[in-house]
């Protein structure tokens, strides 16, 4: 009997160690996958980086037949469409978050929250299809001609907002992208608003503040960094989104200041061209683009996470 107990103990100690190893191994796997992805993109893109050097990101000359690859157009397109998306999504998302946390009657908050989350759940390819078959024709028919007519004669804006009324281009892609990231930013912003300690808001109300004053002078200053984090999270999504923009961007490799001209983005260029890339250098150029995209989104998403962590820590949660 006395010999039996240590036997059980040591057996369970072994089992404990095995369990620990297995779970720690799975945790390591997350890190390994992330590192391996970055390494494999850097390795796959090295040929393009070596061949073109800095010219890879500064040249607009993308010529698959001639073997020249300058990626400025897709890089520019990625940045511009993401910025358009943020310009639309940030005020709307903050408005939704404010509505759901402070303004809406209680019975309607749940359903609206669910609706916004469903908007986030719709697969991006559905956004892309809707963009191509419904929204792009709508832009071509109603918005593009109006922009041409009203903003065309204005000096600087004219160059940005005139172009062929085909509905395909950076403006359409940016708007579709904006609709897509609204629910991501709104959901995080809602949680951030809810995390502001109630006594702070109540004190302001007790001093006679209106709802807007509570938001602008208590909630927003308190949650500023976390709100920026939520916006960065949306930016990270917008930069890497593929299907929603591939449909409506036009896959063109000409640099144009006009938002109505067809353009390209990093993700769309990869999606459109990778299976056709027969030359080693061509494939390497696309993988090099993926590497740049991965590094940039990694930085943006890490910044988002750090900014959001700070609020949680102030709130007493550490994970």
């Amino acid at each position: 009997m006395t010999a039996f107990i240590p036997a059980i103990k040591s057996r369970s100690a072994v089992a404990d160690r095995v369990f620990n190893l297995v779970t720690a191994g799975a945790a390591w796997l997350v890190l390994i996958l992330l590192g391996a992805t970055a390494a494999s993109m850097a390795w796959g893109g090295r040929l393009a980086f070596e061949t073109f050097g800095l010219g890879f990101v500064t040249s607009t000359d993308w010529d698959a037949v001639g073997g020249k690859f300058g990626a400025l157009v897709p890089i520019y397109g990625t940045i511009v469409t993401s910025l358009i998306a943020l310009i639309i999504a940030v005020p709307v998302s903050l408005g939704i978050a404010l509505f759901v946390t402070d303004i809406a009657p209680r019975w309607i908050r749940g359903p609206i929250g669910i609706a916004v989350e469903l908007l986030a759940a719709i697969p991006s390819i559905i956004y892309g299809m809707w963009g191509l078959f419904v929204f792009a024709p709508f832009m071509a028919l109603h918005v593009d001609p109006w922009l041409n007519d009203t903003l065309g004669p204005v000096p600087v804006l004219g160059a940005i907002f005139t172009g062929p009324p085909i509905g395909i281009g950076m403006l359409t892609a940016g708007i579709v992208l904006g609709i897509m990231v609204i629910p991501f930013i709104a959901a995080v912003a809602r949680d951030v608003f809810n995390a502001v300690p109630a006594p702070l808001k109540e004190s302001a109300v007790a001093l006679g503040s209106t709802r807007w004053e509570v938001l602008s002078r208590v909630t927003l200053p308190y949650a500023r960094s976390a709100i920026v984090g939520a916006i960065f999270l949306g930016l990270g999504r917008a930069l890497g989104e593929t299907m929603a923009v591939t449909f409506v961007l036009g896959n063109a490799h000409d640099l144009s200041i006009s938002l109505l001209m067809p353009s390209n983005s990093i993700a769309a260029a990869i999606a459109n061209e990778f299976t056709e890339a027969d030359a080693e250098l061509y494939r390497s150029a696309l993988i090099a683009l993926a590497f740049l995209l991965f590094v940039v989104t990694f930085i943006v998403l890490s910044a988002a996470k750090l900014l959001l962590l700070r609020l949680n820590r102030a709130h007493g949660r550490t994970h």
Partner: protein
Amino acid sequence: MGLVLLQRRAVDALAFLFASAATLFGLFWLFWILWTTFRRGLGAINVALFTQMTPPPGSTGGLLNAFYGSAVMIGFAVIVGAPLGVAAGTYLAEHGRYSRLAAAVSFLNDVLLSAPSIVIGLFVYEIVVRTSGHFSGYAGAIALAMILLPIVVRTSDEALRLVPDQMREAAFALGVPRWRVTAQILYKAAMTAILTGVLLGVARIAGETAPLLFTALNNQFWSGSLSGPLANVPVVIFQYAMSPYDEWHTLAWAGALVLTLFVLGLNLVVRMIAKRTSK
């Protein structure tokens, strides 16, 4: 004094109006996109959609091979990704709760969660397709598993943390070894939440297109094998929508409607389960 108060009230009313308008704006797109998908997809739903293969240009057919290929790849991705995700989540919440590794993994897992899925597709192309020499359903399933993994890690981590510490302490006090506390008590207590996390992950990977473009590719014909190119719903929708053929457009909308109903339905089911258990 009265004027200032009036002005403050006016600004407040404006903010109220703006927030309401923003919410209407957001919901407007949801309804527009859903309405389009239903209107164009409903007419295309028929028996042939579920009994016939994807057709060549200019003729009618169905999406049976694509539905099958998607189901098989999602199933494989869950078998691979879910246990790994739960194990990593267990490390974060239990065995490594205060370790440095857990903090790093928890941080980077969230980055992986939002990482561009097309890069994950390229990564799997580089390590699976290029080394094996051909596109395959396995490669597609691995790419989907990589997207599923961080979702399951996050949800199972949170699910385990919600189990009260008293339960762990009570078990330890009875002399139950740590691994049995996790396997037999904590998993049981957190089972519903872990399963809903996996379901949410399935809803996410069901619509993922970008990571399948260079891994599973597509296949016009029936193929039951994961080791060759495999038809799947998202890539078929993509190719058919981008094509100039009307018959293909119709099929793409039918596929889009089925996919949307599946994803939104799964989301609503998850929400209902979560609501019931929280009561």
